[in-house]
């Protein structure tokens, strides 16, 4: 029983990181219909930024979060203004956007190789291996902090989208940009903000990842794939859907150890993805798609 409790809490904590990892990808896809293949590269770049701030200036990774948010919001807005806005709108631009953002990812990755080599890096804080004991089970303080930040991010995003004019504008642009133009919403400005925010959220995921894992310039590829699985499971429709998708993936991975060998647990998410795409293309928590 204690083992099940330990695993359940571990799964919830893992889900927090997974959700934080997927918010940005989901937001950008939801509003701009663009799969941001540079997402993994942004996560990696944010991990390096955090590492640099920690190593050079002694800035704690969690204190570095506001810095990362600002830097990567600006970077995202810059990528949109400099590259993405020139793409054709709608399905016609889908392939171009994939290639373009894949190219951006390659550039980010190779710049990281040039600057930092392929060596593994990791951040060791004084609390990196500390734990909290609950009902006889110990849990990492770092993972609890990551989970807490992911929940705060979820709440703030929820409030932004539901309680602010900007959030309502984002949702409106996602549903019908043409009508938004007629209603006087500056669609382009909303898109710039959304791409910047999505990139900033990827940056947040990178900061959090840097406190949990070692990383090198190739870091981010697995995170991108898992983020994609999560937003599909969540239904590509909402931030809360993404959080639930992250829970499903984390629980499936952690508890699948009772069913499949541990080396196959990372494949469980992709099996889930295929099953969901076949049986419920709108995602577990999204809209039903009529056939």
């Amino acid at each position: 029983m204690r083992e099940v409790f330990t695993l359940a809490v571990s799964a919830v904590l893992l889900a927090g990181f997974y959700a934080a990892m997927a918010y940005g990808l989901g937001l950008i896809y939801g509003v701009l219909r663009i799969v941001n293949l540079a997402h993994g590269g942004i996560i990696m770049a944010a991990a390096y930024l955090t590492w640099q701030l920690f190593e050079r200036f002694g800035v704690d990774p969690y204190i570095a979060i506001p810095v990362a948010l600002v830097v990567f919001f600006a970077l995202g807005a810059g990528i949109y203004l400099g590259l993405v806005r020139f793409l054709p709108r709608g399905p016609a631009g889908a392939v171009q956007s994939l290639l373009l953002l894949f190219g951006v990812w390659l550039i980010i990755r190779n710049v990281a190789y040039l600057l930092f080599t392929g060596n593994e890096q990791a951040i060791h804080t004084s609390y990196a291996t500390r734990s909290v004991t609950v009902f006889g089970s110990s849990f990492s303080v770092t993972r609890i902090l990551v989970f807490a930040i992911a929940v705060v991010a979820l709440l703030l995003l929820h409030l932004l989208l539901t309680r602010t004019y900007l959030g309502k504008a984002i949702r409106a642009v996602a549903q019908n940009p043409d009508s938004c133009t007629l209603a006087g919403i500056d669609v382009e400005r909303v898109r710039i903000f959304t791409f910047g925010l999505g990139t900033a959220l990827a940056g947040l995921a990178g900061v959090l990842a840097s406190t949990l894992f070692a990383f090198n310039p190739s870091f981010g590829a697995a995170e991108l794939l898992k983020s994609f699985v999560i937003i599909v499971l969540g239904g590509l429709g909402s931030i809360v859907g993404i959080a639930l998708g992250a829970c499903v993936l984390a629980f499936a991975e952690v508890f699948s150890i009772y069913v499949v060998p541990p080396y196959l647990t990372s494949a469980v998410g992709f099996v889930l993805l295929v099953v969901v795409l076949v049986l419920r293309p709108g995602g577990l928590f999204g809209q039903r798609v009529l056939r």
Partner: protein
Amino acid sequence: MDWPKWTGVPLAEVSLLMPSRLAKILALSTILVTAGCAPSQGNDDDGDSSAIPSKIVIGSTLPLTGSESKTGGRFKQGYDLAIEQENADGGVDLGGKKVPVELNLLDDTTDQAKAVNLAQRLITQDKVNFFLGTYSTALVEAQSTVAEQNKIPYVNGGGAATSIYAKGFQWVFGTLAPVENLANTEMEWIDQQQAAGKLPKPARVALIWENTSHGKDFRKGIQDFTRAHGTNYQVVTDESFALDGKDFSAILSKVRAAKPDLFMVDAHLPDFITMQRQYLSSNMCTKVLTYGARGSEADARTALGQDGVSYVLSAVWWNKQLGNTGLNKAFVDSFKAKYGTDPEWYQAQGYEAARALLTSIAKAGSVDKSKVRDQLAGLDIESILPGGRLSFPAANGGQADYPFVVQQNLPDGTSPIVYPADVATGQGVAPNPNCKG
């Protein structure tokens, strides 16, 4: 619940298929890049293999960029030093004539396909005389096939998996001892501690290994040892994991439930860091803890702190602490003189791979590939590697066979060699003093 939704986009819109025109462009680009447009740098004296050439050209690829760039650079240092030393007195002695050696080294960018294509180009187009291999098992495994097909002596210091040498290849030689030996050498030290009454008998073993050829060899080494020692050891957990894991709580939960005395893991650095952090934060403590080759490197201390790596046992193919006498001292001194830093096992392996090839060429007295291959097959030379001798036994398919050096991290920041006894620089500690009770 009223969740804010921004879309109901059908997934069919997300097409990952590549248009055929683009595929053609990419394919053409790939062919252009891999076929290579660089001028040939090969040996022009290729016509008669029994003739003495004006120079000996050794082809090689290493991951000088990409994820293994740092390690590739280290191997290059080893290759360069060995060749520089050979050329210092005129080169390799071929029938009384000194022939200089030239290294034709290309960057395989840590890419398996590129390692294969570049090797093909160096052998068939640039017509290099011999080949020094690349780094990492996956790349060596792919590249060695090219060498075998083209019947060119191929010596590498970067591929440890026994699967490379189990194919019956005649032209492939490796200086890295099997990872099974890593496990075996660690178990020998553990066995000594058990015999001294410091560890329980039977000792309960949790065996956790990454699902790669490296991990499988490690597992086999532990299994073979524990079977050979009857009731002294009991494997209570035997699990593998995929690379780059994000959460090891499930595996660690199984391990904790099995109450092991020995936590024997084989992992690469990123997984070692993630798993060790979770191991520590879940307050686990085992009498002996190892992550295979991981633990003694500076990167591990940086990532986990001194407390996080204290008493971790590790085993490597070579360590600079071996360099107090003889050939090892000469290697360490000359390396420091050239590069200004201490060598690690990567440079030592690169150096020994190049030295083995150069020695075999000199013994053959010719650049005839078959003669050099025969010399490599029968080679038995003094070496800087543990055990002091280097050979490529046919029984191992051309893979060198020697014990590892076992180190243990101590709280004072040192990592002395604790086994084998003849090269030990310090005393190992067992059981782990951090464990209460």
